């Protein structure tokens, strides 16, 4: 029983850490610190997945953990950093909603996901249950971030943190098949987004990666 308790506590700690980092992502107002927090988010995800791999004795999950570590905690933040420097994007972030209301909304979302998930999974094993509730919180906080930010890069980071939540949920669901394939598919998606930002040279066309500016080019309003 003691080892089981430890299994649970560490998984709980790591998943809870991801929720905390999601909150930190919400109030960053500088691009570089946002990138650093995101790298940390992905690092904690890698640890959480690796812990699940050892607890569930599922070695294939180490692949997912490695993808999270190398790709999302190192390569993507560095690539985005380069893009920010090369394209000379404003390093200050604009938010649509102020920090205070955003944090309150975020707390509401976490409460919501706990209220939704815990009662319906009463019969599932506690490990999967808590993981799922935390994962949904991370997903919803990622969505919130995508809504409250105008800047394209911070929207992408919001999406990636959302996706980290999904990977957490998938690895927490014990024995789920195709987790590795799904995380690879997601990594491809993210790579496309990042390459897309760079290749499409959004800045060249719009002079800004501010999505609000793009809205002006609506065909229908011409």
């Amino acid at each position, binding site marked *: 029983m003691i080892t089981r308790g430890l299994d649970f506590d560490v998984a709980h700690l790591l998943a809870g850490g991801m929720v905390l980092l999601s909150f930190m992502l919400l109030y960053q107002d500088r691009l570089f610190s946002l990138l650093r927090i995101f790298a940390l988010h992905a690092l904690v995800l890698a640890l959480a997945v690796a812990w699940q791999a050892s607890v569930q004795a599922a070695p294939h999950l180490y692949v997912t953990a490695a993808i999270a570590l190398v790709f999302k905690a190192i390569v993507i933040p560095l690539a985005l950093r380069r893009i920010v420097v090369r394209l000379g994007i404003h390093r200050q972030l604009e938010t649509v909603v102020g920090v205070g209301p955003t944090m309150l909304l975020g707390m509401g979302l976490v409460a919501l996901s706990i209220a939704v998930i815990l009662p*319906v999974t009463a019969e599932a094993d506690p490990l999967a249950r808590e993981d799922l509730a935390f994962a949904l919180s991370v997903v919803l906080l990622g969505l919130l971030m*995508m809504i409250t930010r105008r800047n394209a890069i911070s929207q992408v980071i919001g999406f990636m943190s959302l996706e980290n939540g999904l990977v957490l949920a998938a690895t927490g669901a014990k024995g789920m098949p195709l987790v590795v*394939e799904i995380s690879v*598919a997601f990594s491809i998606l993210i790579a496309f987004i990042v390459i897309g930002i760079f290749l*499409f040279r959004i800045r060249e*066309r*719009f002079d800004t990666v501010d999505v609000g500016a793009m809205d002006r*080019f609506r*065909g229908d309003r011409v």
Partner: protein
Amino acid sequence: MTAADLVVALMLLVPACAAAALALLPQYRISARLNMGAALVTLLLGLSLTVSRPAPGLYLLVDDLNIVLIVLTTFVGFTTSAFSASYIAHELEIGRLTPAHLRFYHAMYQVLMFAMNLALLANNIGLMWVAVELATLTTVLMVGIYRTHAALEAAWKYFILGSVGIALALFGTILVYVAARPAMGQGSDSMAWTHLLAAAPSFDPVLLNLAFVFLLIGYGTKVGLAPLHAWLPDAHAEGPTPISAVLSGLLLNVALYALLRFKMLLAANPGALAPGPLMVTMGLVSVLFASFMLYRRRDIKRMFAYSSIEHMGIITFAFGMGGALANFAGLLHMAMHSLTKSAIFFAVGHVSQAKGTQKIAEIRGLTESHPVLGWGLVLGVVAIAGMPPLGIFMSEFLIVTSTFARAPLLAIALVAGILIGFGALFLRLHQVAFGEPIGHSEPVQASYVPLFAHLALVAIAGIYLPSAIVAWFRNVAELLGG
């Protein structure tokens, strides 16, 4: 490995190999032909599955439900590749696309075909999700291919909304697995449709309900249901027209197909909530919203994109009502809408090339300046608006009558939506097709075969459906259940 297994494998391998070859071929004329050839081979393979089908495997499956959509998808995929060949030749001429773009475009077209075939054939909810994601990615890239401000904005919007949609769908998929695990144990079996459906009665109903909400919002975004439709008009208007045809005619169907599969799981579980009312509500909201929005459109492709939202709403409504007749009508409407809407986009593509604009105000008197094309467009709009005796009239009639028998108020709302949309379409059609031709216009070198082939099929289906097809659709309608 039987012959049928081989056919299924080839349905995925042919587009995949064609995509690789097309990525390397520099000559666009050859590429366009190869694209058509590969699509034709896929169509023939799809047709052969109607004769003999393989036993369900661990990852791939052919059954009564998906075979209809496989044939439809491969058919429209083939005709669109024929339309695309004449369309892109003109785009290259006027310099909107370069040969390098075309290489990319053709390769992506086949990747999209691969992804849609995979999504339809998948016997695994995880694999299906991966396929839908791949299809989303390829279409995002193709929507942005013109690199104009508007095209990039459309691609970005589609990308963000589509990604959020499929992310939520994945969360729903994970929840389905969590609901299924106590009954089914671990391993790949526990994500296979065939096994899931058999064991569905013993799943945890509350968890299944929660999963369906995520799946409805997630895949519903890809279907283009209001209020999750924001990406759809932009993506249709700014991308190349063949892609608009494939998006409207096929990809929306594929996403709806995914939703239907999950609906079957819920229907098989006695404790789960009835998914019908949710789908009816979203469908009806989409129909009403889109039919009002049709009046405000000034861009011809955007207008037909809103019409797609309307029709996907009608189809979702029909499946939400459930029951043998409504399901039958929904399936029929799915097929008819695909054929008609892609035909309309074929016509609109050539029209916008001939007039050099997509603005409705700058297009007049098409039936005089381009008689064949103009009348083709008129026929298409008459069909999509639901005039008798064409196919869409029949399926809409069936949906409305079956609803009247059970929920008259809903039927009245639906009819109101359809009629409002009808008015908008005819108003604009009158402006575009008749009167004195204005503005600059060029002769078009169009291939009319795909356009009129689709319209002929729709006309025939409205008058006479072969009994074998009716029996087939009925069988599927039973399968879908309440």
